[in-house]
């Protein structure tokens, strides 16, 4: 796909970040990275989702199934420096993250998981995880009792 050529050339230093899922978290990360001048490709199966991106968002939006793009060994994905899987489904995030590790050996792979109990699946694959429940719990804890 030639539309990404310009991105690839100018991004030698920090590489492209691929974000799967343009929900609240996905779009917010995309906006932040784009503001910082990073190159971002954001993928979502629903084009309406991209409305959450800020008007100044300078990355590339792709409508499609992220897992399928990984399966097809898409050229832009191969060159990615990091992959962030933040779709609404834990299972999908796990699968995308594993594909990123297994096919492309991408260094930084982060997956958002609602259910922290599934962790054993990705620990072995070197996938980093963020879990809103765990983060919120510790935040509430520190708000209630101060720093422990």
């Amino acid at each position, binding site marked *: 796909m030639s539309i990404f050529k310009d991105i690839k050339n100018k991004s030698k230093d920090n590489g492209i970040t691929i974000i799967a899922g343009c929900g609240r978290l996905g779009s917010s990360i995309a906006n932040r990275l784009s503001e910082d001048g990073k190159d971002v490709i954001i993928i979502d199966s629903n084009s309406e989702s991209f409305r959450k991106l800020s008007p100044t968002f300078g990355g590339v939006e792709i409508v499609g199934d992220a897992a*399928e793009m990984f399966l097809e060994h898409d050229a832009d994905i191969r060159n990615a420096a990091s992959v962030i899987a933040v779709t609404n489904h*834990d*299972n999908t995030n796990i*699968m995308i993250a594993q*594909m990123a590790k297994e096919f492309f050996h991408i260094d930084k792979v982060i997956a958002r998981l609602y*259910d922290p*109990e*599934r962790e054993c699946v990705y620990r072995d694959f070197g996938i980093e995880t963020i879990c809103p429940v765990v983060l919120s719990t510790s935040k509430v804890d520190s708000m209630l009792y101060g720093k422990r």
Partner: protein
Amino acid sequence: MKPKVVLIDGYDETRLLSRSLIEKRFRVTAINESMDCCEKLAEINGLRVFHGDGSKPFVLEDAGVYGSDIAIAMSEHDDANLVICELCKKKFNVKKTIAIISDPNKTDFFLSVGVDSVVCAITAISNIIEQHVLLNDIRTIMPIAEGQVQVFQVNIPKNANVIGKHLWEISLPDEVVVGCVLRGSSSIIPKGDTCIASGDNLILLASDDYKEAAVHQLTKI
């Protein structure tokens, strides 16, 4: 000790599989996300049924999956099946995991991350349909090793060339074996001197590439 099998999701598949597995004296547990399906499955004699999302560890734990011999993930979502198989393998020490997938492109990926066996229903079905469309003389086909080897049945037409010939006289390709001859109600395990008769049904084992050549050889008039 009877082997322990866990079937996760897939109502119709679970119903058929559990019946035949229980008959073969397996201990079968079914986990299903839909309460309706669970209630219907509970009518099957000897089947333990659990309600819940099989991709969640606590559901698998409640259902006593730990140490099972086989887990078969049959939900309609490929990603869920992947997670189910990996949880079963890593967290619950299940010996063999099988995933049913709908996207054939994912087969290699699933195998490479440690799922023991992957079945793609759509590939299997489309293979069968293709055979029925392309080759009228072939009856049933069973693909083995991802379709590289096929087991199938060929009906010998009335005035075929091969009738009356010994098996050794028929020059079949090397990669084709006649496994069985069905004649009326009897079945014959053929030797080289077995004669082919009109109306015989031959069960063949052949590599996919030579299948059509074999059928052509046996049915030409």
